[in-house]
């Protein structure tokens, strides 16, 4: 592999990870002003801000952060289907966050220990993500092992989002990590939390579903285009302006 190929792969990986953080941050930002309790207004905004910070670093490795965020169409975004899913109820948001934070934490731990362009970011981000994971875990336990209603809602959320989780373990060229090991560790972590929360781990497809790998190729789910329309409209309405 030539130097240029390697660079292209690194750029593609940075874009994929940056898009994950950018899109999930945006979804969490939609909660602000709508959270079930004031402490969660603070917590969800906090997580959204951490992710946005990560996205800005990653996208800046690729090019101009604003051009990348505001001037690409959905076919050019490389984020996972999981992160673009609408917020749904609080249980859906928490299930999405648990699945993604567990993945991101394990992935960034590995990237922090490899010596690559991602090491400085991963070293810093892994501390933030440990907090995100703890937050998602605590809420999964409260909702799963709370009332009958919250248990049902949490189980529904996990069931609904499970099919989007296989995509996380499609190897990203440019990141030299053991993807099978990542998948095993993730499964162990998430299964452990769900079990503790008295929830059932879904048996449905985690790979083989249409969604596995599609987001990374720019093939997204329908709600994503609408999300981008809202996110980008002001920036696109004033071409060339600075803000």
């Amino acid at each position, binding site marked *: 592999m030539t130097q240029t190929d390697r660079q292209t792969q690194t750029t593609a990986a940075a874009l994929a990870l940056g898009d994950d953080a950018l899109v999930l941050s945006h979804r969490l930002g939609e909660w602000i002003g709508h959270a*079930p309790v004031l402490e969660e207004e603070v917590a969800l905004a906090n997580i959204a801000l951490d992710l946005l910070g990560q996205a800005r670093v990653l996208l800046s490795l690729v090019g101009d952060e604003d051009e990348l965020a505001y001037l690409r169409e959905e076919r050019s975004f490389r984020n996972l289907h999981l992160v673009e899913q609408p917020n749904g109820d609080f249980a859906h948001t928490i299930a999405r966050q648990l699945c993604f934070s567990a993945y991101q934490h394990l992935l960034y731990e590995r990237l922090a220990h490899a010596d690559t362009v991602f090491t400085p970011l991963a070293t810093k981000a892994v501390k933030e993500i440990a907090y995100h994971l703890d937050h998602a875990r605590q809420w999964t336990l409260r909702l799963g092992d709370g009332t009958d209603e919250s248990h049902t809602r949490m189980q529904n959320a996990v069931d609904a989002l499970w099919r989007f989780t296989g995509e996380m373990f499609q190897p990203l060229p440019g990141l030299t990590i053991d993807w099978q090991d990542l998948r095993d560790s993730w499964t162990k972590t998430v299964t452990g939390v769900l079990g503790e929360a008295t929830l059932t781990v879904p048996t449905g497809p985690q790979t083989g579903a249409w969604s596995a790998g599609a987001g990374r190729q720019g093939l997204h789910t329908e709600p994503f285009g609408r999300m981008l329309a809202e996110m980008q409209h002001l920036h696109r309405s*004033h071409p060339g302006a600075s*803000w």
Partner: protein
Amino acid sequence: MATSAPRHPAAPRTTDDGTGGDSSDAEARSAAFQAAFDAAVAADERIEPRDWMPDAYRATLVRQIAQHAHSEIIGMQPEANWITRAPSLRRKAILMAKVQDEAGHGLYLYSAAETLGVGRDELLDKLHSGRQKYSSIFNYPTLTWADVGAIGWLVDGAAITNQVPLCRCSYGPYARAMVRVCKEESFHQRQGYELLLALSRGTEAQHAMAQDAVDRWWWPSLMMFGPPDTESAHSAQSMAWKIKRHSNDELRQRFVDICVPQAESLGLTLPDPELRWNEERGHHDFGAIDWTEFQEVLKGRGPCNEQRITQRRRAHDEGAWVREAAAAHAAKHSSPAATREGRAA
């Protein structure tokens, strides 16, 4: 409170229940508490939660601090309205951080109110049922991105002008909350100013957007200082208690004097043809405020009153199952030791 005055009984609020000694005894003690309270306020000392205080002082503080907390919470809405549309990632991060700070301010302030013996749930219930108010300013809509800058510059600016004197308010927990709030607010205000400056120096369309926002937010910001001194119901008593340090009109004048040069350096105008420097007074004269509009907004008939309270209620109601789950989980998993500690606290 550090005072030499003889006014720190073990359980001051049980003195009016008639169980401790005869009534003349109780009256004498009550008078002594009042005298000690008055002396402490006169000496600029801080009243603390366990100190005796007049019932009306307590009620006024509850009303004011709750209204202040509610304003932080409702005030998240007009700005959060633009989070998903912020035109650059930097601006988006700044705005999210700011709205997050506001939720934090709400939490400080509810805690301060709770030191006076009311619960946060009770206060939220009063907000949701319209029995307690929030600042009239948040009943105006954010129609463009520039409104986010105008809110930072003008609304936060007015809030700071109001709140800096509250850092010296006679009630300790409120004063200390204000110190923290004011630090963050001044940061927000500078960010709002900087946002408007970027627009004002940007394209023609951006400049027009900034001017339009300032035109719409100027008068509502002046209303944030409350009714004129001649019609302010609570002012005199609040000033005597040193909850308030300056009159509404004084603070409003101070704000106008600060804003005029800032508007000039922004390259924007303020929408008041009567605004001019008065050499004799050493202040800017300005036009008459439309108090009818102010009253309408206060009565719930402003542009967004219905929407704001509906959204707040909906967030609360739709979150009920989440709060119930948290409580049920805590009850299931609290150890006997933790329960004992909880009772003792």
